[in-house]
């Protein structure tokens, strides 16, 4: 009996959490059109996110591209299809690895920071202080973070795509002995705008997911150090799982 009760309680909690997140998303869209907008604060936050994330996504891009070239060579050389490596590297990066790896890295780098910062603000009554100063705390805390990350992700993915392809090129040309002109021609001729666009759309959705989940966990964290810790963990874990789930459905759409 107790076992069934605990299953029921878990299911109810899950449904309740989904309901709260849906309301949270609704609030975001409601407040985004409602003054005050804190434009300067939005711009500042966008620049902060952008600058702090560039090193991590650059490293993600270059090493993914390099590994992808090496692994593809291992497989394709077995049936003399090495010439497909440029195509595979650019296609895998733009359509799949670029947005997913960037999403996961940004979730760990920016999502955790957002959740920890907002949860700490909640614990130390800073959010109450915002209310007492007649500040729309949702527009001050949530809107800049969601907008910044949602708008920054397509740029991040473009950077990862470019750096990743460069990494693949470097390994293929200088390690595997490919002709540099042929590699570039095969890469540029094979990629289409729709491949790039599908990756960019995925990244935009992932940016929205990471920022909404992180802000939600921060804003509704429990009190104390434990609350801050679990808000941060939940933000990263839930965002990462949702990225993988949404990635499948978005891939189905662009298939």
């Amino acid at each position, binding site marked *: 009996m107790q076992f069934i009760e605990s299953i029921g309680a878990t299911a109810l909690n899950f449904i309740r959490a989904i309901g709260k997140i849906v309301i949270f998303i609704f609030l975001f869209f409601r407040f985004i059109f409602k003054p005050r907008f804190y434009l300067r604060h939005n711009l500042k936050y966008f620049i902060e996110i952008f600058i702090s994330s560039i090193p991590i996504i650059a490293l993600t891009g270059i090493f993914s591209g390099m590994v992808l070239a090496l692994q593809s060579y291992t497989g394709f050389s077995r049936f003399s299809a090495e010439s497909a490596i440029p195509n595979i590297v650019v296609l895998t990066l733009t359509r799949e690895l670029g947005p997913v790896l960037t999403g996961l890295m940004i979730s760990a780098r920016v999502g955790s920071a957002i959740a920890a*910062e907002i949860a*700490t603000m909640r614990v130390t*009554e800073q959010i109450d202080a915002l209310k007492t100063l007649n500040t729309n705390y949702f527009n001050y805390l949530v809107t800049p973070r969601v907008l910044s990350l949602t708008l920054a992700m397509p740029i991040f993915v473009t950077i990862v795509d470019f750096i990743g392809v460069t990494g693949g090129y470097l390994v293929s040309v200088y390690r595997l002995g490919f002709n540099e002109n042929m590699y570039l021609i095969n890469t540029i001729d094979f990629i289409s705008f729709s491949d790039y666009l599908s990756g960019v759309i995925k990244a935009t959705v992932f940016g929205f997911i990471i920022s909404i989940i992180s802000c939600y966990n921060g804003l509704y964290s429990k009190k104390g150090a434990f609350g801050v810790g679990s808000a941060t963990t939940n933000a990263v874990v839930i965002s990462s799982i949702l990225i993988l789930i949404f990635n499948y459905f978005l891939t189905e759409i662009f298939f």
Partner: protein
Amino acid sequence: MEIKIEKLSKKFGDNHVLKNINILIEKNKSTIILGKSGCGKSVLLKIIYQLIRNDKGLIFYDKKKFVDIDKFGMLFQYGALFDSLTVAENIAFIDFVDGKKNYKNKVINSLKEVGLTADVYDKHPSEISGGMKKRVALARAIYKNPKVIFLDEPTTGLDPINSDMINELIIRIIKKKKMTAVTITHDIQSALKTGDNYFFLNNGVVEDFGKCNLMLKSKNKLMNEFLMGVKKLQNS
């Protein structure tokens, strides 16, 4: 501003935090709300400030049901300063978020009022002491010249010397700016020093009230137990 609270109740789930509260906060006077931890003091303060809604009862601000919260200022228990902003941006927050830049003189005057110099202007909260943080938080609370100032445990976490300084500062500012003050505190010395009237809350009910200078002569049993408890703690 006079604040009149009538039959106010609030519960969270099954927990009745405030039950049928009636309080009159007199204009330009300092009202102290006393009580043990968890008796509903902070909830009451937040309801008066309109940060949370009451379930039952009415609050009249100068005989009106609605009030612009720009007329209020609040000093939080631990300051609640924004870590990512400088002292100046914290104090002038309402101007800072609006993108105004001509707040320097006003901030320096506010710093002077709370006994600080312009040296801390560009510092972050993490770079100043606990006592200074409290003063900066007080400067932020009075920056917009509120009609009512709410003080949540103003002396918590401070040593006796700093506590005394904060109390003196509060008395001076309230008198100078002719503000109504509502203070939550456990600190009897602070209550006696800064308060005109007091209300003693126990389990969400007003058990005792009166003039602060007569507080120690209260005949209410629970109030006396509270005073004795605080005294014992201070002696130990």
